[in-house]
């Protein structure tokens, strides 16, 4: 199994698919990468030579934001919002949706599992 950018081990899928196992590489970038590195995107990842891998690795290093670096920039952006105390920042601090979605209902992804409040309308009837 080839290994790029540390821990990532794509498998015996076509190259353009396996590259997408890297954080920050989607369908478009993965195809563009193959083109830049002169690799047939349909070739299986296990058939990649060390040379190909080196080419991909240097390309990633030079031109793309990927894995750890990407994660760090994302985190930094959010931290910046929190630090300047703008609306989006406070929403992040409180773990609520930051892009104007409703939070009276739904928004469970951000708010986590429901916390039932006793005595609220509807709860009593359920017994």
């Amino acid at each position, binding site marked *: 199994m080839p290994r790029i950018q540390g821990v990532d081990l794509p498998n015996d899928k076509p190259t353009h698919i396996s590259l997408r196992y890297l954080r920050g590489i989607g369908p478009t970038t993965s195809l563009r990468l193959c083109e830049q590195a002169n690799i047939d995107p349909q070739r299986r990842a296990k058939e990649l030579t060390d040379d190909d891998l080196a080419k991909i690795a240097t390309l990633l290093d030079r031109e793309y934001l990927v894995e750890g670096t990407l994660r760090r920039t994302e985190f930094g952006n959010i931290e910046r919002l929190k630090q300047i105390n*703008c*609306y989006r920042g406070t929403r992040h*601090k409180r773990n609520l949706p930051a892009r104007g979605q409703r939070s009276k209902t739904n928004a469970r992804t951000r708010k986590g599992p429901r916390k039932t409040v006793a005595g609220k309308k509807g709860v009593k009837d359920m017994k």
Partner: protein
Amino acid sequence: MSRSSKKGPYVDAKVQKKVEKTLSTASREPIKTWARDCTITPEFVGLTFLVHNGKAHIKVYVTEDMVGHKLGEFSPTRTFRGHGGGKKPAPAAGGK
């Protein structure tokens, strides 16, 4: 949907005028404004604004990081005083 870059950032004309005025003088008096939709330009850095939130004017000191945001983003319009009551102390309004 973001604003067309052809137009450039929206800066309220009156705020712009007041900023220029305070910059030309030595005084750093806060600029009172209702223009929450005014984009913060690099010139605003270091000035203090009093941004209306519908009820009162909130003091906003502009730092470099705030450039590109709108004045209103720093003047919250709602206060959440926490759910429930009774014994549990409610989280402070506008806190974290």
